[in-house]
């Protein structure tokens, strides 16, 4: 079973990520078990999928948190994808899911983000990291989660900006 970083530890990944379908999202067959489905599949099959407790949804970088909206609240897992690590849209998506849409489940980064983005992603509310590349040393990558221990801005992990905390 592949591994990922979750809540600061290396754990086994029990979820399967379903790729975006070539054809109609409505006609995709979602297998049994813990599955992370593309947003399009979720939106077209919501009525059916909502009855399951083992469905997560992933948002591509050109999809916004508002497209999932309040659905997020009931989901156990939402993933945000990085097609390339320089595509920073998912940082905003993550924050919005946490701060505006009340998502409290596992927020997972997937795709081609890099280790050096872990600290900022964590600050934006991401708590699980599944690298697309298999040659990443997760033990080493863990170190980057704590690149900073103090911050100026308000964010998910620290809602009070430094100016409200300065002694």
């Amino acid at each position, binding site marked *: 079973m592949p591994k990922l970083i979750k809540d600061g530890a290396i754990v086994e990944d029990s979820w399967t990520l379903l790729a975006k379908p070539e054809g109609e999202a409505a006609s995709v067959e979602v297998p049994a078990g813990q599955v992370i489905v593309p947003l399009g599949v979720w939106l077209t099959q919501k009525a059916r999928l909502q009855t399951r407790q083992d469905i997560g949804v992933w948002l591509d970088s050109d999809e*916004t948190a508002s497209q999932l909206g309040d659905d997020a609240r009931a989901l156990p897992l939402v993933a945000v994808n990085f097609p390339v*690590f*320089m*595509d*920073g*849209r998912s*940082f*905003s*998506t993550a*924050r919005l899911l946490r701060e*505006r849409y009340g998502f409290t489940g596992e927020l997972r980064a997937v795709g081609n983000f*890099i280790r*050096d*983005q872990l*600290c*900022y*992603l964590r*600050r*934006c509310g991401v708590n699980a990291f599944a690298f697309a590349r298999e040659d990443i040393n997760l033990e080493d990558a863990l170190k980057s989660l704590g*690149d*900073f*221990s*103090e*911050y*100026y*801005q*308000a*964010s998910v992990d620290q*809602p*009070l*900006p*430094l*100016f*409200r905390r*300065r002694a």
Partner: protein
Amino acid sequence: MYIYDDYDHQILRERVAQFRDQTARFLAGELKPEEFLPLRLQNGLYVQRLAPMLRINVPYGMLNSTQLRRLAHIARHYDKGYCHVSTRQNIQFNWPDLTEVPDILTELAEVQMHGTQSSGNCIRNTTSDQFAGVAEDEIIDPRPYCEIIRQWSTFHPEFAFLPRKFKIAVTGSQQDRAAVQVHDIGLQLIVKDSGEVGFKVYVGGGLGRTPVIGSAIRDFLPEEHLLSYLEAILRIYNQYGRRDNKFKARIKILVRAMTPEIFAQEVEAEWLHLKDGYNKLTQAEIDRAKSFFTQPPYAIVDANAAQAQLDVQASEQPAFGKWLQRNVRGHKIPGYAAVTLSLKPTGVAPGDITDTQLEIIANLADEFSFGEARTTHEQNIVLADVKKTDLFTLWQKAKQAGFATPNIGTITDIICCPGGDFCSLANAKSIPIAESIQRQFEDMDYVYDLGDIDLNISGCMNACGHHHVGHIGILGVDKKGEEFYQVQLGGSASNDASLGDVLGPSFGADDMPAVIQKLVDVYVENRTDEELFIDTYRRIGATPFKERVYAKAH
């Protein structure tokens, strides 16, 4: 000036440690070059034509003498004995060794300096008016707000991988010396009759390949909402700015595509969610920021006596008089003056400064200006708080050090990017063009008679030399491997911001001094008594200039 507390120091130390580790992993082959690239850029490190270039932030242009001495040390110890003041008030080292960069950054961190976010697709150093806090026409000091923005934008977790770079400028004076209308966000401080402080917000201005004057999207943003509003703008941009084409990725393209009206609506809608959150500035925080920019302990100077003495000295030494006229300006405290040290003597790349000169400026700052100096976006250095009774002594010392060229604001005070001599993006050299024009205009009396002329040179369309907003703008272009220069007229970065019009076909490097001379001749022949070059151009239009420059030889 802002002084770091333990929090600031800790955050910067952690950043230096992070980059030291990243550099080590890159050198060990653990971090791919394409992954290291944005990381090193966000720490100020470019790879240039001949060597790396390290860009050090000077937050809104403010430097103290300790920092100047440290920059001198770095220039001497790690570089070739000089550095460069950029058009965004930053300092650039042209020859650092990659392996030594973490050490340089460690040394800089000790004096509260760094290169973080001086490059890359993130929020860059906030720039401002070099006469902030001392200008006679100032409405309110912009620096406390610049510092609040500096802290908010530094290592902002959401906005470190934007579609493209992002620049913010703030002005607090009647005359805009920070060019806010050609920034991604321009903030103009306003004080209402009621005493309420806020900002007029411009967005989507910029130079580069597609020059645009910013659009005002809000006429009055109350000061306490500064950060939430910035966050709303950045969030809209981060989500919707184009990422498919780096030449269309700046916010100006998004604003234009959406129209400024729709863009403003989107920002306002986003802001409604954010405006009363924790980012809302407290009065305590605004006061804290302001506490770092209080007045220095000014001496009581008999302003009239000091002025009378200056008049005598100027009549005895006309060269001093010229310097007073061009390089010294008024101060809100009677008996004080703000002095611009020119980094534009003929024959030196505009903005270049040696290690020894940096130390001299540090000494001058300590002796004459409360230990502080400022960089300007015109690539000069300002000593902002000089007693009028000290001006003559300061002039003598500045002259000896090569800083007293009395050309501030004139045609030889050229804004110029490093160009093809250094920069790997450049299509053409820019420094030799600046020098040849300076040589053409060596008669200072003639130069004074011409009055204020902004002449700006960029070595490529990225426009680091701000050619679009020069009264005369020069753009280096490459034609089949040969360097040519296009001329633009009528640009301005001031309150009446405008973009220059292309005059016509480009010229060879050797022709440039004569071309500029002809343009100036047309101005001199057509001007009225009170007109500057830009005014005459706006009145008579491009045609007389074109006719002269492109006239067939008989």
